[in-house]
Every structure is written in C-alpha cells, then in structure tokens.
C-alpha cells in the first residue's frame, strides 16, 4: 500500500523526478522509514524461528503437524523482504533495481535450488537421509568398557596395505591414520558386515569411506568398532582392491 502511494506520488508530481539521484535520496528521506522498528521486527521474527526449532527439534511428531519447515521458510522470506525493502531501500528506489534483483532470486536462483533438490535427492531416499545411513543399518554405539580409543596406523601404496591385519575391541572408538606412500590416491573403506557374510565387499563397493589419503598425505578418520568378527577393509579407488589392496580387521 505504502509502495503504491509512493509510486503515485512520484508520477503525479511533475516536479518530482524519480530518476534523479538527489530527488531519489529525498524521497527516501521523506518516507522516513523506521529503521529501528525494522530491526525490532527482524529480531522478533528471529526469536520466533529459534523458539520453533527449540520446541520442535525435528521434523517428526508435533513439528510435522504444524508444518515446521514451511513455517520457518515463510519467516525467513519475511525477514529477507524486510532487509531488501527497507535496509536496501528497494521499496523507495527505481523499479529497475527490483527487476534485476528479482530476476536473480525469483527467476533463476530459487528455481535452481528447488529443482536441484528434486533432481538430486529423489523422495525415496528421504528415510535414508533421516537415519543417516542405509535403511535398517545399525550404528554401533561406543562401549566404555571396551578400552580407551585406539589409533591404528597403516600405510597404503600400490596395491597393498601395510600392515594388512588390524585388531580392535567391539565398541572401542578406533581412529585410522592412513599414510599414502604411493603415487595415486588411496582410501580406507570398511563394510558394515563381517567377512563371513561379505568376503569381497569391494565387488559391490559396499561400505563407508573411513579415511582417504591423497598422494603423500595422511588420511585420518574414525569409527566405533562394530560387533565382534573379522571385517575386510579395502581401497575403493577402482581396480585397487582387485589388485590386492585389502586387509582384515579383527574385532574382539
């Protein structure tokens, strides 16, 4: 409404030249936007956002019923509009600026972000993403009785690990330090299932990358040792495991 009026003012008054820079400044001054008020509004909106997140910490349960994410996005857009219209005074400025900014955000930026989300994360993966792993995968929990965290050091080169056999206790926090002494990148990949069920996990590229080591560097990473058993570990750079770059870690 306010915007409408200011525009009418600018066209109705023949002495008023909205293109003129000095006149434009005057128009902003005349409008006397209450900048402190805008700040208070921004602060209140932020406080609402934060409390929504604190009260409904996840997308499940009560949070889902009130449409937590759409609400948060709505509040964000409201805040963004306040900043754009008042602090960047697009509300009082030439519409040409709004067209450029609108083209950036509305015509190209936003559609790109939305289509990327749909194109790259198909909905069927949603459950997986919430769990943070494959469906049904159980993450081992650290067991304080299993002993202090242990650091296992090994070297990787073409195409071997040295040592090729490692050991840890179930539930123990394990840190891996993979030193790459070869001439191409190597990594340390471990499947979630033991050798008994998965003798050659590299065939299906089963497992998570624990550490990766580019040439002449030390790749670090860690995991909580899973249930007892012998687990294979390998390098999943194509061809490396097949050439013999794998080993066994025994969990007791």
């Amino acid at each position, binding site marked *: 409404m306010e915007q409408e009026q200011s525009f009418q003012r*600018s*066209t109705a008054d023949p002495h008023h*030249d*909205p*293109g*003129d*820079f*000095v006149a434009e*400044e005057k128009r*902003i*001054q005349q409008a006397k936007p209450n*900048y*402190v008020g*805008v*700040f208070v509004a*921004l*602060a209140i909106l*932020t406080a609402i*956002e*934060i409390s*929504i*997140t*604190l009260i409904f910490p996840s997308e499940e349960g009560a949070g889902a019923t009130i449409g937590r*994410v759409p609400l*948060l*996005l709505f*509040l*964000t857009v409201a*805040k*963004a509009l306040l*900043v*754009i219209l008042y*602090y*960047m005074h697009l509300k009082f400025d*030439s*519409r*040409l*600026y709004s*067209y*450029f*900014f609108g*083209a*950036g*955000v509305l015509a*190209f*930026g*936003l559609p*790109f*972000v939305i289509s*990327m*989300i749909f194109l*790259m*994360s198909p909905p069927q993966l949603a459950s997986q*993403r*919430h769990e*943070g*792993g494959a469906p049904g995968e159980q*993450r081992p929990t650290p067991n304080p009785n299993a002993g202090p965290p242990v650091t296992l050091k090994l070297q990787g080169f073409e195409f071997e690990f040295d040592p090729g056999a490692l050991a840890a206790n179930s539930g123990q926090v394990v840190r891996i330090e993979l030193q790459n002494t070869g001439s191409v990148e190597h990594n340390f990949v471990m499947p979630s299932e033991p050798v008994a069920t998965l003798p050659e996990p590299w065939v299906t590229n089963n497992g998570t990358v624990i550490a990766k080591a580019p040439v002449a560097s030390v790749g670090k*990473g*860690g995991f909580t040792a899973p249930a007892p058993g012998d687990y294979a570990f390998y390098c999943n750079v194509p061809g490396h495991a097949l050439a013999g770059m794998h080993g066994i870690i025994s969990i007791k």
Partner: protein
Amino acid sequence: MSAVGKLEKAGDRVGSHMEQVVSEAQVQPEHAETTTGLDHRKLLIWVFIASETIFFASLMATYLVFRGKTPPQDGLAHLDLNVASINTFILLASSLTMVLALQSIESGKKGRLIGLLILTALLGALFLGGQALEYNELITNGVSIDTNLFGATFFTLTGFHGAHVAIGILWIIMLIIRALRGGISQHNHLAVELGGLYWHFVDLVWVVLFTIIYLI
C-alpha cells in the same frame, strides 16, 4: 490488420511499457547524466548483487542436496545454536547501524556517520569471531573440511559467506578512511550507499543460511 501487424503492435506496447520502467520519467537530455537517471555505480552494484544471488544459490543447493548424508553425530550435532543465534543478532544489528550511518550522512552528520561505520565494522568483526569459535568447536570434535560431506559443504558455504563479510569490513574501513579525509559529504555519499547495499546483501544471505543450516 494482419496477424503479424497485430503482433508487432502488441510487441511495441510491451516495449513501451518496458521503456517506461527503464526510465520512469523522461529526463531532460541536457541535465541528465545518464539515460535512466540512475548512477552507473549503483546500477553496477545491483546487477552484481543479482549475480551474487546465483553464486550463493548454487552453494546452498550443494549444501541442501548433501544435507542428511552425514550422520548428525559426525557433524551437525557439534553446531551450537546459541552461538549462531547470537551471531545472527550481531549481523542484523550491524545492518541497522549501517543503514543509520547512511541516514546520518544524508542529514549531514558526518561525525555520527564515522561512529556508526566503526560500529558496523566492529559488529562484523564480532560476527567473524563467533564464526571462528564455531569452526574451532567443529575442528576439535574432528569435523574439518575433508572429514565428511557435512564438513565440506558447511565450511564451504559459511566460509564463502565469511569471506564476503571480511570484504565488507575492508570496504567499510575504506569508507571510514575516505570520510575522515573529507571525501564524503551530505551531497556526495553514494559510496556509503553502495557499501551499505553490499553489506545488507551479505546480511540477507546470512538470514537464509541461518535457516537452512541451523533451523530446518
């Protein structure tokens, strides 16, 4: 009238409307510095900001498509909502001081301008300090840029935003120096406005980042 003629006429009408948008009022040529009456530099800044929106849109898309691929305990859980919330308030406050700085020079209060600009730069620095605190927390918990996808996307996205804040601080410092040397006055303060536009845009990006990283 032929169909083509009608199309041409319709096109002409839309064209004249666009023209009206481009120059809302026809300025007298001998007085006009520019065709649209808008300053070159301000137009440049706005088009540049439009370009920057796509830059951050691409980074945000990267963050969002990889969101959830890393288990929270390996990344997201180490973020502190308190620090981020305080940081948000700091940056919003810096936007307020920036716009008040512009308002002061518009009414010729140069001393107030310099004071508010210094305050803005300090708030910006404080924001960067908060970010450093956050990075430190993550790194001591073993989450760095090469640990996992969360680390990679988080550090890249907030890092580029932080870099923009840092450039904004440098820009404001240059404005302060210029104001002290008498280069800014009531009738010559476009530089403050341009710096302000950039600063508010960086603030705007944070408003969105805060939601997609910490809240959703």
